[in-house]
């Protein structure tokens, strides 16, 4: 049985169908990617998987539980954690606190225990704090726990987001453009980290990414979305050669002039579509995510 099973998922915004009849299966232990041009419905898909949007139709099963109609926090509790396309840290909290919030679903807390500071409460807090520090070490943020999240450099913020998501002890980790805006060195580090998370922690990973090099390098399975529909799916090298995919990215004319045998996506492909996504992000992220 797959870890995640999506059947016939549909989401509309007014007249626009953002995701149309999407079917998907994800096996435990894979690193899978979803790619597609801007507005293809990738983030919408993530938002449906995490309960931010309720799909019009279709079903989503995770580990045998239906996710439809569940709130985001309940889905996190079931074992799906995520990061965001435009980093959404708790900026005015410290780095450790960010991770501690990530553990929220797992901490059994009652106001009374907190007020009376019972032994159980103290032990739990202590354990949580030790674990947070360990997680920060794991993602390479050791020793920066008391800084405010907003003061971290960009790459570290991405890492912190991953640490925060890991704190929920998920079985499935959804990463929304984990290397967007990173320099090559940072991207390489992030790639390593993602792989380690799968290999060492056994967490299944589903990521949205525009950096084709990363996608091709890391993924076991790649799915391509365009206009809300799945247009291709397969191992990275299969997808790379798929004509529809190239069309979707570059338009028909360009696609036909390219040979399917091109070794790797050309640099224009990588950079050509990342910037607009980032450019609008800070002010218009709301609209962007729809």
């Amino acid at each position: 049985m797959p870890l995640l099973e999506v059947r016939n998922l549909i989401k509309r915004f007014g007249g626009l169908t953002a995701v149309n009849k999407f079917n998907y299966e994800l096996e435990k232990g894979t690193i899978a990617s979803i790619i597609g041009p801007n507005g293809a419905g990738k983030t919408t898909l993530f938002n449906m998987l995490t309960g931010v949007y309720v799909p019009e139709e279709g079903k989503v099963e995770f580990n045998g539980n239906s996710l439809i109609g569940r709130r985001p926090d309940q889905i996190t509790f079931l074992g799906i954690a995520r990061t965001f396309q435009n980093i959404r840290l708790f900026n005015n909290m410290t780095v450790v606190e960010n991770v501690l919030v990530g553990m929220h679903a797992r901490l059994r807390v009652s106001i009374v225990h907190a007020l009376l500071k019972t032994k159980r409460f103290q032990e739990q807090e202590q354990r949580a704090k030790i674990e947070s520090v360990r997680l920060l070490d794991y993602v390479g943020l050791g020793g920066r726990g008391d800084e405010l999240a907003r003061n971290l450099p960009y790459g570290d913020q991405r890492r912190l987001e991953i640490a925060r998501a890991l704190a929920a002890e998920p079985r499935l980790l959804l990463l929304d453009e984990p290397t967007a805006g990173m320099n090559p060195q940072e991207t390489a580090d992030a790639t390593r980290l993602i792989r380690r998370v799968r290999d060492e922690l056994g967490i299944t990973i589903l990521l949205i990414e525009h950096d084709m090099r990363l996608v091709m390098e890391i993924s076991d399975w790649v799915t391509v979305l365009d206009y809300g529909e799945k247009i291709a799916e397969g191992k990275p090298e299969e997808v790379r050669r798929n004509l529809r995919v190239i069309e979707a990215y570059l338009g028909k004319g360009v696609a036909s002039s390219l040979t399917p045998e091109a070794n790797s996506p050309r640099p224009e492909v990588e950079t050509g579509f990342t910037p607009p996504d980032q450019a609008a992000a800070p002010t218009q992220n709301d609209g962007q995510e729809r």
Partner: protein
Amino acid sequence: MQTETVAPTRAVSRGIFSSQMLRTLFAPLGQLAIWTVGTAVVLSLVVLLLALIFRTSSSGVDRFTLVLSILPQVIVDSMVLGFVYAMIALGYTMVYGVLEFINFAHSEIFMIGAVVGAEVLISLSEAKALENFNPLLLILLIIAAGMAVSGLVAVVVERVAYRPLRNAPRLVPLISAIGVSFFLQDLVRMLESIWRNAFYRTYPDVPSFSQRISFGDTLDVSYKSIIVVVAAIVMLLALNYLVGATKIGKSIRAVAQNRATASLMGIDVDRAIALTFLVGGALGGAAGVLYGLRFSTINPYTGFIPGIKAFTAAVLGGIGNITGAMLGGIVLGFLETFGASYLSIFTEGAFGAEYKDILAFGILIIVLIFRPKGLLGEVVGERA
């Protein structure tokens, strides 16, 4: 922001007198008429039905005749109040449409209009100049004065207290707006106190406004009521034209749609926002003058309750939607006047007009919970 439902964007290019144009301008009028009549009919039927069911009160009064005897008057009063609310609500809705921000100080902009109108009238009356004035001119003069000052204050407030906060988290400009609201109340009070040594102002009697048209015993419409309704309708049409068919309106709508894109298209965003405040503020000021004219006394704290109610009206109609704000105002005016007029008749005094003000809050809460879109608006819930 749904202004495009009010007016198709291409209207301008078709020339002023095209049928498309006319439809754009007057469609809301039809909608307004339908809603006004509809609300009046529905509410009248409800109270009459209730009166028939619970016909005799414990003291033997026939509720049906009682209800019927004041019904025409209640409907007229409802309309007057509704149009005042509608005009204030436009200010909230326009600013919300453009900035997604509740301009809490709009109620004070309204109040300032009322105060300015009163001062102009009082000065004229003190100068014994009232009699010499053509009544129509007088009306235009005080409304214009109220609009000018209110619009200006709104622009200044935006420049000083909101613009620096435009990219701050949502609550920051709201708190600033609350501060502005309180500041303006006391500022007006201080100025009036220094100048007039009193801050409760009464609109002097203008004989030509005080006339009435009587329809038998049951209905009695004062000129003032007619002035309020007519002026409000004219304003609403003018606004509709401004937003729907002029370049200014276009820039406002563009900024409402997407600030960043509008700015890339060469629209001066700051100017468009300032214009929004100017227009909304001017309408608020006009509403203030009409309110003062109709209800006669005003003070620096007059604005607060009508302001909250007009905000309710804007939400009721679907905030961000200009036609919605008008309809919301009308509906709220009807609900409030009907509720307050008839509650005590039906509850035999146990509950009465004293609950008038919280009726609006009750409606606000119910609308927000059950139909956050309002009558014709966008979803109000948290965006993801």
